[in-house]
């Protein structure tokens, strides 16, 4: 494990559009950057057996998730020439239409930012111990499973 500080990625509740706008604005002074790539995950109103998803409640094994995210972050920085990378994931309840994941990568030219963003999202979904419980409009639930 490197000496770099392990960053928190978790946000309670939805990730607000204002927070995302603010995060973009903070890059004004980083003039070496020529391309940003952003992925936002939004809670989808899936229909399952006639019932609609109203929200997803997220829980995580936080310590392990943050350690794993740190490791992924280091590997992505080693692989791509990035200027910066920011990752936020919701915990707790996020309603349909709200944002639950925000990944933001930046580089001098666009391609590393785009490839890194995509790879981070894939790895995060496969490797981080986070669980989403889909809560239906009638308050029953089922547990999501990433394929």
């Amino acid at each position: 494990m490197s000496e770099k500080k392990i960053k928190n990625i978790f946000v309670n509740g939805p990730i607000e559009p204002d927070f995302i706008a603010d995060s973009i604005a903070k890059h004004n002074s980083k003039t070496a950057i020529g391309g940003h790539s952003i992925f936002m995950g939004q809670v989808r109103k899936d229909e399952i057996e006639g019932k609609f998803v109203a929200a997803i409640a997220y829980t995580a094994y936080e310590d392990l998730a943050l350690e794993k995210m740190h490791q992924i972050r280091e590997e992505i920085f080693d692989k791509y020439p990035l200027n910066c990378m920011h990752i936020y994931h919701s915990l707790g309840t996020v309603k349909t239409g709200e944002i639950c994941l925000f990944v933001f990568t930046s580089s001098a030219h666009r391609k590393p930012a785009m490839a890194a963003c995509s790879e981070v999202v894939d790895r995060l979904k496969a490797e981080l111990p986070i669980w989403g419980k889909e809560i239906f409009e009638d308050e029953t639930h089922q547990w999501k499973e990433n394929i």
Partner: protein
Amino acid sequence: MEIELISFGKIAEFINNQNIELDGIADTDAFKQYLENQFPALKSMKYKLALNKNIVQENTEITNSATIAIMPPFSGG
């Protein structure tokens, strides 16, 4: 020896976090057998263990005061 058991996701709906006294269980393979005997619902589920915050990839020795997490398939993002 005593271990701390923690569980997540749908597994947390039927296995509470608890401290358990284990005798004669030396490694994670034996522990899985123990768990599936105690909680038969696990037999038909996919799950992974984490021993002291390390995801168990191969059979690993368990020592006293270990923390073992039972984790169903991940569904973040």
